[in-house]
Each structure stands twice: as C-alpha cells, then as structure tokens.
C-alpha cells in the first residue's frame, strides 16, 4: 500500500512535466549559421518589443525575422546584405548601431564636440585665474600694511 502511494505521488509530481512537454522550437540545422544569426540578431531591434533585440524577443514577428535571417544566410548572403534587407523594410530603426550619415552626425560626433567645448572652457578659465593671481602684485608698502593687519588680527582674537 505504502509503495503504491509513493508511486502515485511520484507520478502526480511528474505529470505537469509530462503534460507540458511540447516540441522544442525548431533550431537551425546548421550550428554555424545559428551562431552567426544570433550574433547578428543581438545588434538588431525588435520592432514589436522595442527595447529588446531580435535575439531576445519572444514576439512572433521576431521569430519570423530570425527564420528569415537564417534562410538568407543559408543562401550565402553576408551580414551586411542581411542588414540591408531589414533596413529596406523597417528603416534604420532596426539597427542598434546607427549608420554614420548626415542626419546622424550630431548623434555620433555631438559628445566629442561637447567634450572639446568643455575642455576649452576649462582651459580658458584656468588661464584667466592664473593671470588674475599674478596680475597686480603688491607694492612693498602694501605688503607691510597687509602683514600688519594680519598680525593685529592674531593678537586680538575676538
């Protein structure tokens, strides 16, 4: 009796796995192409879940596009040609690494420009400060006076 109970418990514990065992999604037959596809898909944006890459996304469009990329690669197309295929259909938006062209110059070179502007400002401020510090040296009289005032201050701490 006890043995039967144990068997029953084991079977019922395992049943969700038995019932839930579905066919695994088809993985490309060629591991080399699969690897290439996944590497490329890391750089491509899924149009449906826009903060995910094509490699990560579970959206059905992403699955279709991964399949499309596999097929293009099997036909011998290069990574660039695959990217072009997607850009023609969905625009530069699919690329996580935007191309350098006139409309993206500000994006690509803006940070460097800001850095240069910041460094130039910092440099000119420092130069001006140094000039201020050395511009009007005290005369001998003034220095005497200043020392006198300072020592007076020391003698009478209020």
């Amino acid at each position, binding site marked *: 009796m006890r043995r039967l109970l144990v068997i029953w418990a084991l079977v019922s514990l395992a049943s969700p796995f038995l019932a839930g065992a579905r066919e695994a999604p088809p993985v490309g037959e060629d591991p080399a192409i699969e690897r290439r596809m996944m590497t490329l898909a890391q750089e491509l944006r899924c*149009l*449906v879940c*826009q903060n995910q890459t094509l490699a990560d996304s579970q959206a*059905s*469009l992403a699955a*279709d*596009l991964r399949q*499309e990329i596999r097929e293009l690669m099997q036909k011998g197309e290069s990574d660039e040609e695959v990217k072009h295929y997607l*850009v*023609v*259909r*969905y*625009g*530069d*938006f699919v690329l996580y690494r935007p191309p350098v062209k006139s409309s993206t110059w500000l994006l690509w070179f803006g940070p460097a420009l800001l850095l240069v502007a910041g460094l130039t400002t910092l440099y000119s401020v420092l130069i001006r400060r140094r000039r201020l510090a050395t511009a009007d040296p005290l005369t001998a009289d003034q220095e005497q006076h200043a020392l006198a005032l300072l020592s007076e201050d020391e003698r009478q701490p209020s």
Partner: protein
Amino acid sequence: MKKLAALRFLIPLAAFLVLSGFLFKGLWMDPHQVPSPLIDKPAPAFRLTQVADPGKSLSRDELLGKVWLLNVWASWCVSCREEHAVLVEFAKTGVVPIYGLDYQDTRDAALKWLGTLGNPYQASLFDQDGRVGIDYGVYGVPETYVIDKAGTIRYKQIGPITPEILHDTIVPLVRKLNA
C-alpha cells in the same frame, strides 16, 4: 563688458530651457510610430491567393493604374475589430477601393470574421506565412498603405484608422492622387 559678464549667468538657464523644450516635445511623440522607409518607394511586388477563393490570385501589378488602399488585418487582431467598423462605413462611400492583406491568419477564421463584421474589401489577399507582410515592413497590425496609380506607396498608417484620420489625411491624399 560688465553687462556681458552678468549675462554669463543666464547660460545655464538658456541651456535648461532648450533641454526642457526637447523633453516637452518628447512627451507627445509616440515611439511606436516608426517612419517607414517605404514611403515614396515602389510597393513591393506580391502574388497571393484570395481569402475567399484559394483558386484566385492577385498581384500588385494588376492593381496598377488606380489609387488603392492596402489594409493589413487579421481575425486575431483586437484593434482591427475596432477599425473594421470604420472601414465598412468608409467603403460605402466608394472614394477609394480597399484591398485587404490577411496577415498570418487561417481562411476559416478570416471568412467567419468577414461574414459577421462585414466585408469592406474588393478582395483580401491571404498572407499565411507573413512573407508579404515582412516585405511591406508590417510590425503591428492593423496597418494601412495608400498606393498611387504608379504603384508607389504614398502614406502609411500604423495602428487603427479612425474617422479623423480618414477625413484629415487619407481622403484628401486620395483626391490629390486621383486629380
């Protein structure tokens, strides 16, 4: 000179205002509206069977010479249901022929949908594997394209068509293209 020096303190304020301007504009922009690279490009070619009759096919080139709408829909698409009523009403006006692209659907479900909700389409193309959808850069159903007499895509609507969009954008555009 002194006056200029005083103005220096306004620089951060100016920078802040410019930044606020950009951020404020960003509040009203929808990141899901990705501009299509296909605008003003030839509509991708296709030859698909019709939903109503697997024996009849239709290609892009057979539609050359008239202005037409391509409406991407599917029976599983929730916002298409909302849009469908607008399309059925619009089709009655006869301003422009509407062709459907039934995207990743089954024939049975599609025919049932058309039977119960009405059929605004001259014909619906059956794009079971979504290949034509990919060629048209479809990423969110429903989507609608306005295609001119030369087979060029002139406008793309992402998301459901509303009476306002018809009135303000699509009808004037169709009139212009037909003129």
